[in-house]
């Protein structure tokens, strides 16, 4: 079922995100200069851009990690309950002194009772294919497995909005493809709104309903991706769109300053 269809029959239950005139500067340097963006409930949006374009700053603002911005930000859960927003970082950020299942249960926050938390954590671990690793220490897991635990931790509280800050950036190509389909699957099953920051155009095209290109603190391109899921990377249209996005990205690079070594 497409997102549009889900929205029509009311089964989309992610949060809607509305940004209006978001501006953020660090001292003299202005990083975001009036970003307007509207994200529908249950939509999967990828944000791409050069490093230093402000995409991670935008993500941190949406995730509530950065409050020193100007402009309006509204995140509303469709069913009127308090919005649960979760972030997944580039690093897994697992607590090394807690077992895998304790790390997942950590995602339910400080109020959860231990017994309840563990039951939820177990099913979240199973959803990412690590149901049998709950009792181990995080440091015995591989990089991809650690990121799957981090995903389970983010998902265990059934978020309305999942914000992903290049979570697959440090993984090898094969693990990455596996993680992409896992991400797509859980997104589809749970119906949360997903915002993914990435520098990988192929990844953005594989996962997102919409790709947003940020350039010098502004939105330079907002492109709907019409392909049916699951997507096949090899197709001609896919290649054309990839080419188009890469050109746009590289163009934005030529405008930025050259480094002098």
């Amino acid at each position, binding site marked *: 079922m497409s997102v549009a269809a889900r929205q029509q029959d009311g089964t989309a239950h992610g949060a809607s995100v509305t940004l209006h005139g978001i501006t953020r500067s660090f001292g003299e340097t202005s990083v975001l200069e009036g970003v307007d963006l509207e994200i529908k409930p249950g939509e999967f949006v990828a944000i791409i851009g050069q490093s230093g374009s402000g995409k991670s700053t935008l993500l941190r603002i949406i*995730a509530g990690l950065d409050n020193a911005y100007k402009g309006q930000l509204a995140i509303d859960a469709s069913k009127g309950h308090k919005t649960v927003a979760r972030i997944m*970082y580039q690093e897994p*950020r697992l607590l*090394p*002194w807690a077992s895998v299942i304790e790390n997942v249960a950590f995602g339910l926050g*400080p*109020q959860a009772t231990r017994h309840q938390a563990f039951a939820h954590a177990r099913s979240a671990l199973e959803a990412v294919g690590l149901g049998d690793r709950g009792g181990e*220490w995080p*440091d015995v897991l591989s990089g991809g497995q650690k990121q799957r635990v981090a995903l389970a931790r983010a998902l265990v509280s059934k978020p309305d909005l999942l914000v992903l800050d290049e979570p697959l950036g440090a993984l090898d190509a094969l693990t990455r493809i596996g993680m992409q389909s896992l991400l797509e699957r859980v997104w589809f099953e749970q119906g949360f709104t997903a915002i993914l920051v990435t520098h990988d155009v192929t990844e953005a095209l594989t996962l997102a309903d919409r790709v947003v290109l940020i350039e010098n603190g502004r939105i330079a391109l907002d492109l709907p991706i019409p392909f049916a899921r699951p997507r096949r990377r090899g197709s001609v249209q896919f290649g054309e769109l990839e080419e188009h996005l890469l050109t746009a990205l590289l163009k934005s690079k030529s405008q930025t300053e050259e480094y002098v070594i």
Partner: protein
Amino acid sequence: MSELALLATRHSHRKRDTFVSLLLVSPNGFVPWLLPLTVLVLWQASASYGALPPSILPAPSDVAKAAWRLTISGELLINAAISFKRAFSGLIVGGTLAFALGLSNGLSRLSERSTDTTIQMVRNIPNLALIPLVIVWFGIGEEAKLFLVSFGVFFPIYINTFHGIRTVDPQLVEMARSYGFKGFELFRRVILPGALPSILVGLRYALGIMWLTLIVAETIAAQSGLGYMAMSAREFMQTDVVVLAILIYALLGKVADGSVRVIERLSLSWHPAYRKGARL
């Protein structure tokens, strides 16, 4: 049950380790004891063949006899118990203060600004240099020893607690905050476990300083305890008792250090460096 205690019980159930077995049996078997045993044998041999006069160094067998004699009379046990009590009261008083101040300075910039410079200045005073002053203040009573030991153990625990808290991975703290952890829960689940390896290093240093300080203090200003026992034996040229006292110090130091290693192994079993069989 606290997280740490839980980890500890879980670990001990799984590996069937008891505190005592971990303390006595080194992970490397008997190899670490080979060198001390050889020294002991050579020592006994040279004493038995007269190469070593008893007034300089008594034979190990004489030391053992002295140990037996003093155990029977109860003198050894009483003195050891007194020293032990002094050492640990000092550790508890100084350690608690240091831990509290390390936490507060690690967690609050204001607290750090108002006390850290002072602590760093006082830290450079060797605690044994205070003995004359302490005798003037407290005489040779229990307070003097308590003060000196507390003062000595304070700094390593303070510095390592402070350092441990300050070096907790800020990425983990940010992650925990984003999941709604703050205040005491953030401290209990993230900051304290992150600082624990460093805090235990501080404790190990403190235990060394604890015995050192106590022994010197008892040698100079005491009327009981192991240090006093050694000093009064010197007056009667009882070198066997002096050597016995020294050996007991070595043993106590080893036991104290071993206890912290066991605590490390139980509470830091998540840490690859402290896992059983890990090379340190």
